[in-house]
């Protein structure tokens, strides 16, 4: 960034103002203060070494052409409660009624003017905690400026998934959504997200999981080729709780998915997994930071990327085991399948351990398709393209296996198969 640019950015931050009415006002203004203090990230930041944030931090969102994949909406066959946002704006027409047993659902925009809301103690809190030891300015910006989002308080087992559907209708939309989910003791919910959302999408999701509660998250990021997204999940896990998140990404010029997990109660289990399929102008970055701050917790990171025609995949995954977090079991694997020599995978696995009774493993590999397996399939009559697809799916399968719900996993499997088949045709 040149001095002139930096000044423009600083000026732009100075010019920002937040909605200072209602229950979220304090959180918003302190987030803005945080943001001003940190400044927006640049390519020179160590944390952004492999991904250029310029188009995520720029004043205006770069345009993104709309893309109609001409396919059936995802999870169509799955019984769920639908909440639709079009370019970041809630679409009441297209959404279901927001009442569902064991979960109380409201929206940020709709409740903004109220002075009291249960989310007040959470909104921006986990995000703010997650700013240390690594700064995440775009998340602070989100807290300050989010125009809407879903606020969910889960009090028991929810019978069907709540589904956030993000539609993209305007080529220049710049959407900022902030969701807060509080899963109370005994609560158990599955949240799905899918769709391209906007030309540029900045999303934060804060998930507070109480003792013994469960949160399942399955996401498919939209296929619009030119879309950009920066997303953050901040989650805090109580004792014996479960957090499971899976993301499927195909297409998109730029995606940065950060997941910041804090295991604060004993015997908690957190899993974050992803499968990404990139072709051509595609840059996909998974950045995970897991802090073990309790005894006997388990964390799993499973990321798989298939890249071709110059696509770029990034994985930054850190496990921090704090003093006293004994019997920690940390597993991390990030693998890429490079279908040609133009594509690249950049991985930075990190372990930082301050406890002595800990089992952590991490592995990162990058390789081409197994020629022997390919020949074996061909020798049985499977055409080479189909054989490649089969091997690609097999490669991604390990990540998809992290999804608990058979219906959701099956839907994503099917979708992947269709994409591959179509591309081979």
């Amino acid at each position, binding site marked *: 960034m040149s001095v002139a640019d930096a000044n423009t950015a600083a000026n732009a931050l100075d010019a920002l103002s937040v909605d200072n009415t209602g229950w979220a006002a304090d959180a918003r203004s302190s987030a803005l203060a945080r943001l001003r203090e940190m400044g927006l990230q640049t390519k020179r930041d160590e944390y952004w070494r492999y991904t250029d944030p310029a188009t995520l931090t720029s004043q205006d969102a770069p345009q993104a052409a709309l893309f109609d994949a001409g396919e059936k909406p995802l999870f169509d066959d799955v019984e769920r409660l639908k909440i639709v946002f079009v370019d970041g704006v809630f679409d009441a027409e297209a959404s279901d009624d927001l009442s569902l047993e064991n979960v109380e659902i409201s929206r940020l925009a709709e409740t903004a003017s109220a002075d009291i809301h249960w989310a007040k103690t959470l909104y921006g809190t986990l995000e703010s905690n997650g700013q240390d030891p690594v700064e995440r300015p775009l998340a602070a910006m989100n807290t300050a400026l989010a125009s809407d989002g879903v606020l969910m308080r889960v009090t028991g087992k929810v019978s069907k998934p709540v589904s956030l559907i993000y539609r993209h209708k305007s080529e220049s939309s710049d959407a900022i959504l902030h969701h807060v989910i509080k899963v109370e003791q005994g609560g158990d919910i599955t949240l799905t997200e899918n769709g391209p959302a906007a030309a540029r999408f900045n999303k934060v999701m804060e998930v507070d999981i109480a003792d013994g509660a469960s949160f399942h998250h399955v996401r498919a990021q939209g296929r619009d080729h030119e879309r950009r997204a920066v997303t953050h999940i901040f989650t805090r896990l109580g004792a014996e709780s479960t957090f499971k998140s899976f993301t499927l990404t195909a297409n998109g010029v730029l995606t940065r998915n950060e997941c910041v997990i804090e295991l604060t109660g004993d015997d908690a289990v957190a899993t974050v997994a992803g499968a990404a399929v990139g072709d051509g102008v595609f840059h996909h970055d998974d950045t995970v930071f897991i802090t073990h701050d309790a005894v006997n917790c388990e964390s799993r990171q499973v990321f798989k990327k298939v890249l071709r025609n110059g696509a770029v995949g990034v994985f930054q995954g850190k496990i921090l085991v704090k003093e006293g977090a004994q019997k920690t079991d940390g597993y991390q694997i990030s693998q890429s399948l490079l279908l040609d020599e133009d594509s690249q995978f950049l991985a930075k696995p990190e372990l930082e351990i301050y406890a002595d009774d800990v089992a952590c493993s991490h592995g990162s590999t990058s390789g081409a398709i*197994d020629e022997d397996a390919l020949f*074996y399939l*061909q*020798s049985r*009559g*499977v*055409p080479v393209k189909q054989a490649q697809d089969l*091997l690609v799916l*097999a490669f991604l*399968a390990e990540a998809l296996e992290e999804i608990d719900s058979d219906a959701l996993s099956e839907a994503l499997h099917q979708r992947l198969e269709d994409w591959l088949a179509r591309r081979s045709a």
Partner: protein
Amino acid sequence: MQMTLVLVVKNVSKEKKMLEIKNLQVGLEEEDKQILKGVDLKIGAGEVHAIMGPNGSGKSTLSYVLSGKDGYEVTGGSAVLNGEELLEMEPEERAAAGLFLAFQYPVEIPGVGNMTFLRTAVNAQRKARGEEELSAGEFLKVIRAKAMELEIDADMLKRPVNVGFSGGEKKRNEILQMAMLEPKMCILDETDSGLDVDAMKLVSQGVNALRSEGRSFLVITHYQRLLDHIKPDVVHIMANGKIIKSGGPELALEVENNGYADLLAEVA
């Protein structure tokens, strides 16, 4: 009158060629090394031929080149299957044309279920031949029956292809694939190695059940034992990239008793 007719038909099929390899010369793509130095081999429809030969003589190379594996360079000669030149086809086209290789070292494919693999293969070949694909139900019925004959249990069908299979299980899995794909020309590369006595019988039964007038076999082996179960019509000895001698089943016995020294000396 009727009897003569049957005889005539039989004669014709006996004479019908299945695979004809002429002066096949093969080197490696990466290095300057000649492996096959002019292989000639003619297999009639319905016949069983065996190839024996010292380690490194080029037997597996021959089977790989016939099935279209990368990394080899054909510098001369031809291989014709049922009137079609094999060497110009993609591996999957060769398979659809009726060629099958039971690998000396079956490949493990993590993440691909054995059942999915087989169904994909069967249907790909049916499609290539313009036949209708088998439904999941039909497929299941057929594979269950065939797996049972080879004592392959349901669990092995569900597991990823060859992953964690014992040596013998891998070989039985090869024969299962062969039984499902019903190829015309089957090449078995050391299918007997790694098999215990009972498994060898099972596999041989599997092969013998597939023997028919329209199907030929090329059995690569080091041991006479397999040929007790699968009786060959012709035995070839390969050495240093060439077939150096062909004969009846007695040739295999000779190798079993005396090794290759005498045979090699004969041609030297």
